[in-house]
Structure formats: C-alpha cells, structure tokens
C-alpha cells in the first residue's frame, strides 16, 4: 500500500460521508415520496442539496472504482467505514451533540474493524498462488 492508495481510501470515506449527508438533508426537505408518484423521485435531483450530494457521490465513485482496481472488495468496504465515526465526531465537535455510551461502543467497534482489515493484505485472490510462493510475498508484490 502506497501513500497515494491510502489517500484514495480516505477520499472514499470523506466523499461518501459528505454525499450521503447532503442527500439525506435534501430528501428530508422534499418529504415523503408516495408509491403512486414515483416521478417525483426523478425530479428529486433538481433539489440543490440532492444535486450537491450527487456531485460528492460521483467523486466517491471515482475513488471507489480506483480502489477496487487494486484491492479486494472485502478489504475496501471495512477499510472505508470510518465515515460513520466521522459523522458522529463532526456532530460532537461542531454541533456539540452529546455522544451516548452506546455510540462510543459503536465507534470503537468500527475503528477496531478498520484496524483489523487494514493490518492485513489488501489483495488475496488476484494471482493463483503456487505452492512455493507465500501469500505475503504475492501481496507485497501487488502492493508495491
């Protein structure tokens, strides 16, 4: 894993969090969408919050595709899940919302999960590993 690759993983985390937050805010403003009026879902992109959210999600998507081109899906997904923690911490320090003990446990579980997967190899399956080449050698070749 190079520094550039860690930057891409950080981009996934930050862009998806910002995009989701903007989308949620926009959809709240629009209110409930009825099953009988699905066209209003298509018109939702005219809302500026939703539009900004979609722009961030496009940036997220570019980073996500880049990461999937050199890392396993089961590596990328947990490694970029710090966004949930990010939202809670922003709410805590910007809006001074209290974080309940349960949420602190949630934050530590997610952080532990990220640490667990990030400490392991980022690619496991791409090359058929012959009997005399260890998995570590192959993954470090892929990563370098």
């Amino acid at each position, binding site marked *: 894993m190079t520094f550039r690759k860690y930057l891409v993983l950080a981009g996934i985390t930050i862009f998806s969090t910002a995009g989701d937050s903007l989308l949620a805010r926009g959809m709240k403003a629009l209110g409930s969408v009825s099953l009988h009026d699905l066209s209003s879902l298509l018109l939702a992109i005219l809302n500026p919050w939703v539009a900004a959210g979609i722009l961030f999600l496009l940036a997220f998507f570019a980073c996500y595709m880049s990461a999937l081109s050199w890392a396993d899906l089961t590596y990328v997904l947990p490694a970029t899940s710090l966004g949930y923690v990010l939202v809670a911490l922003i709410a805590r320090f910007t809006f001074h919302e209290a974080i309940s003990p349960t949420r602190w446990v949630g934050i530590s579980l997610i952080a532990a*999960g990220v640490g667990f997967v990030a400490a392991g190899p980022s690619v496991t399956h791409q090359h058929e590993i012959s009997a005399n080449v260890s998995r570590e050698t192959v993954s470090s070749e892929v990563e370098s």
Partner: protein
Amino acid sequence: MKDIYAWAAIGLIILASTTGDVLLSYSMKRVGDVGELWKQRGVLAVVGRVLATPAFALGLMAMGVAFYSLLFGLSWGNLSLVVPASASLTFVANAVAAKIFLHERVGRRRWIAALLVAGGVVLMAV
C-alpha cells in the same frame, strides 16, 4: 404499513448494492490497476477500458437501483432504521458474496472486520 415499505426498501438496497459491488469489483479487477494504466496510457485509456467492460455497466445499473431504493426508503423518514439496517447487513452480504463470486480469501481477519463494522454501524444508530 410504513414499516413494510421500509423493510422492502432495505431488502432491495442490500440485494442491489451487493450485486452492484460484486459486479463493479469484478469489472475493475479485469481493468487492472487504474493508477498504473493512467500513468502509462493516460486518463482516456482508463475511461475507455472501464466503459468497455460489460460487468461495469451492469454493476452501475444495480447501483442505480440501490440508490433509488435508498432515496425511496429515506423519504419515508425512518432514517434511523433504513440507513443502519441496510448498511450493516450489506457489509455481511458483501463478505459472503465476495467469497462465493469473487473467490476472495475471506479469512478470519476479514470476517472479524466485517462483523465488527456491521455491529458498530448498528450501535451508532441506537
């Protein structure tokens, strides 16, 4: 009635986004390291090769379905149910699907990571 819609949206989000993630991951593995390709052949070569991969278009369609299911679910206002339920179950579904369809070695480390994150996401919403 609202709950049924919410859980229908959740089920649809999990199914569609897992399908999408697997297809996109599959297609990007066929494209190869995007950074290397960009350095050697330029950004147009990257875009061209990605768009020429059929699995990419299918994955994008599945993601579109997941995206609109999420908008649909969010519009019912049950933000604290729809987002954590679909997000945490998607982590687990993806680990299973990646093992089966992408032949990733989901070892103990990856399972623990997926379950820790899935559990953490649920607790964040309580």
